[in-house]
């Protein structure tokens, strides 16, 4: 898993209401949700991103509600992966279950600026900030079971595979 894209930064404790407000939860259509992705944290977000861009966040990203609409909105908006200092528990599960790649890095947030390009290598666990002299940053290792979920294409496909 390799990703290259521009970074959009968000701070600590970005809650799922900020990622996708409850006022849009009268549907689970991924495209309708994606149109309002991150709206209450940054109303311009959807307009300024391009496919493949990356969200870099601080502590406890995705706290609050269990709504899976949050990672669905991020994934469908075209964000390739989310890198946070730490994720809230339910968001962390949901992201793996629906196949949105997420990584934990303690260092990235403080070193990168909005719009800067980075390269993420999920396989060797490193991040490179392009146009910078800094060496690669380390990603927290992903538990083996979670890697299997991602490589199988999400939880439901993982279960189907186990059954066969």
């Amino acid at each position, binding site marked *: 898993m390799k990703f290259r894209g521009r970074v959009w930064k968000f701070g600590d404790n970005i809650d799922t*209401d900020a990622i996708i*407000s409850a006022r849009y939860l009268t549907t689970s259509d991924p495209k309708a949700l994606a149109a309002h992705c991150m709206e209450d944290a940054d109303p311009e977000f959807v307009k300024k991103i391009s496919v493949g861009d990356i969200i870099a966040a601080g502590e406890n990203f995705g706290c609050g509600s*269990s*709504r899976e609409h949050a990672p669905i909105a991020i994934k469908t908006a075209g964000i390739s992966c989310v890198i946070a200092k730490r994720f809230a*528990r339910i968001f962390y*599960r949901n992201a793996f*279950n629906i196949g949105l790649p997420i990584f934990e890095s303690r260092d990235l947030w403080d070193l990168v600026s909005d719009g800067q390009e980075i390269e993420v290598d999920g396989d060797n666990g490193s991040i490179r900030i392009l146009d910078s002299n800094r060496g690669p940053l380390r990603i927290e290792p992903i538990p083996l079971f979670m890697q299997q979920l991602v490589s199988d294409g*999400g939880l439901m496909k993982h279960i189907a595979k186990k059954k066969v």
Partner: protein
Amino acid sequence: MLINARVDIALGNDITAPIAIAEFRKAGGIKVFDRDKVVLIPDHFTPNKDIDSAQQCKFMREFAREQELTHYYDVGEVGIEHALLPEQGIVLPGDLVIGADSHTCTYGALGAFATGVGSTDLAAAMMTGEVWFKVPETIKIVFHGKTKKWVSGKDLILHIIGLIGVDGALYKAMEFTGETVGQLSMADRLTIANMVIEAGAKNGIFIPDDITKAYVEKRAKRPYSFYNSDPDAQYADVIDIDVSKIEPQVAFPHIPSNVRGISQVGNVKIDQVVIGSCTNGRIEDLRVAAGILKNKEAAPYVRLIIVPATQEIYKQAMKEGLIEIFIDAHAAVSTPTCGACLGGHMGVLADGEKAVSTTNRNFIGRMGHTGSEVYLASPAIAAASAVLGRIASPEEL
């Protein structure tokens, strides 16, 4: 350690279940693993707030009928899920409960392991009856002393969230013990366990005791188990709390950890008060509010909205004359719904408006416009605030 565990109850609501049902079908699901154990509760945008939410509810209702689910409750019977399930004995001590709703952790009050998950986890549980878990570390909270007047379970949990922060228990279990627990009613325990997610916790748990027994024995329709912590259990942290030092708490916008004692609030004028929700919509909460609102009225230009969390609570409140007290106080009394708490309907806030709410989250835009503000507090503070038109203690009345 990762484990696969059998679930006793798998829960979804009208927002989260539609995705779970779609995933279940997409994966070839035909029948749920056990029609007694999959519980679907349309409580968020009900009674249907608009055409889209009506479509979501219809989709879920048709699935519930097709699957002949034992526990499906529609408008007129439905209550707010986390108040309804314990009340009806659907969740019991010793159960393993997952719910596609973050406040599923409420049932830890009964001594159940209960945690919130997403829709896909619910879909997997509906198919297989199993869910994968990482076994959490535990933070032990030890309560000492006697609570002051007007201090409730809500104040204790707000105090803890203020102390450890919204990620203070991230990925961890919170176990509540100590001499004070024996004085806490089941309603207080349910409120405390309900809000552990606001500290990032996976679940909160109380060791079952006589209060638990008295609560469940008249409700249970199947066997249940009381589990204790191991005497040699290891804890990630132990936090001692002298509850006698805690005054009623208010969480200021826009994060539940932004907590102040009522004496430190200052003059905060308000536009709306909401008393209800899975956090504080039980009969004990309504009794406290009615005790304060009796022979009084909401202040001019303050909208007071009271939402009994279940039909049984509503009926009991009528019998006790509480509804009359509320209406005489110029409150709008609503059928059970989560609506106002998440800015769905039944009390959405406009730009610049401030609300005192007995709910559980005060994030930006949580109850309406992103320019509105939510102050979280107990039913006692909420009721007193409604009368005075500013955040206030019942002591000021």
